[in-house]
C-alpha cells in the first residue's frame, strides 16, 4: 500500500496493486489501549484515530478480475463486513452521492484482488478519519 496524500485532520488517499490490510485502529497486547493507526500522519496523534469512513474509490483491472473491500474487526478477525465488490474499471464517489460508506468505521480495511488477471489491477481509496479524544503521543 502506498499513500498518495495524508492530511493532518483531513482525508487520506491510498493506492495498492496487491492485497492489503489497512490498520485503522489497533491495540497493544499489554495495555489494550488504542494506540496505533496507519492513517496517522506527521503531527497527528495515532491513538485519537478511532475509525474512518470511505468517501471515494477508484479501481481498474481486466474484465475477469475484481476487488473486494471488507472491514474486519481488528480485535476479532472472524468479524467481517463486506463493503463492496468492484469489477472492471471505474470510480465511485460515495461523498458526492451523499451516501458515505460508514459501515463499521472502526474496523480495518481489507483490500483483495480476485479473479483471472488480478495481478494486473489497482485500487485507490479516499477515507475520512474519525477522531476520538485520547491524546497520547505516538
Amino acid at each position, binding site marked *: 500500500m502506498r499513500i498518495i*496524500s495524508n492530511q493532518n485532520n483531513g482525508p487520506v488517499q491510498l*493506492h495498492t496493486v496487491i492485497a492489503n490490510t489497512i490498520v485503522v485502529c489497533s491495540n497493544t497486547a499489554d495495555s489494550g489501549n488504542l494506540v496505533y493507526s496507519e492513517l496517522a500522519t506527521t503531527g497527528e496523534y495515532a491513538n485519537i484515530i478511532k475509525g474512518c469512513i470511505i468517501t*471515494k474509490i477508484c479501481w*481498474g483491472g*481486466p474484465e475477469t478480475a475484481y476487488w473486494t473491500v471488507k472491514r474486519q474487526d481488528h480485535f476479532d478477525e472472524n468479524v467481517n463486513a463486506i463493503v463492496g465488490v468492484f469489477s472492471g474499471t471505474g470510480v465511485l464517489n460515495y461523498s458526492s452521492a451523499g451516501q458515505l460508506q460508514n459501515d463499521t468505521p472502526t474496523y480495518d480495511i481489507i483490500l483483495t484482488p480476485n479473479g483471472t488477471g488480478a495481478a*494486473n489491477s489497482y485500487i485507490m481509496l479516499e477515507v475520512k478519519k474519525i477522531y476520538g479524544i485520547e491524546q497520547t503521543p505516538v
Partner: protein
Amino acid sequence: MTVSYKTTNASPKIIIQADANTGSVVIAGNSTVSNVTSFDVEEVNGAAISQVLWGAPHDAYWTIHRGANLVGVYNGSGHINYSAQGMTINLDADADLSANLVGSTNGTIMIELKKS
C-alpha cells in the same frame, strides 16, 4: 504505432496520446532529456496523472506504469478524471511513464499529466 505529446507553454499539462504501447516516456529532466518539455529551457521535475481516457475491446485493457510500478489499469472504454475527484495519482511522479495494451492490438489511450 502513434505516440504523440501535446504540451503548451501556457499550461503545465501534458497529454500523451497513443494507439499502441508507448515504450518508456521520459518525464523528468530538461529539454534534452525529457520527452514532455514544452520549450527549450524548461526543466520538468515530475508529472502526476490527472485524467485518463481509453478505449479497447471489452476483454482487453491498458496498464500504466511509472518506472517499474503499476499505478493504473483500464479495461474496455472509459474516462476517469482523477483531478476532479481530488485524487491525482502522484506516485513516482518523476519516473518514466509507459502505457501498454494487453489482450488486443486495437486500442487508444490519452493520458493527461500535470507537470511540477
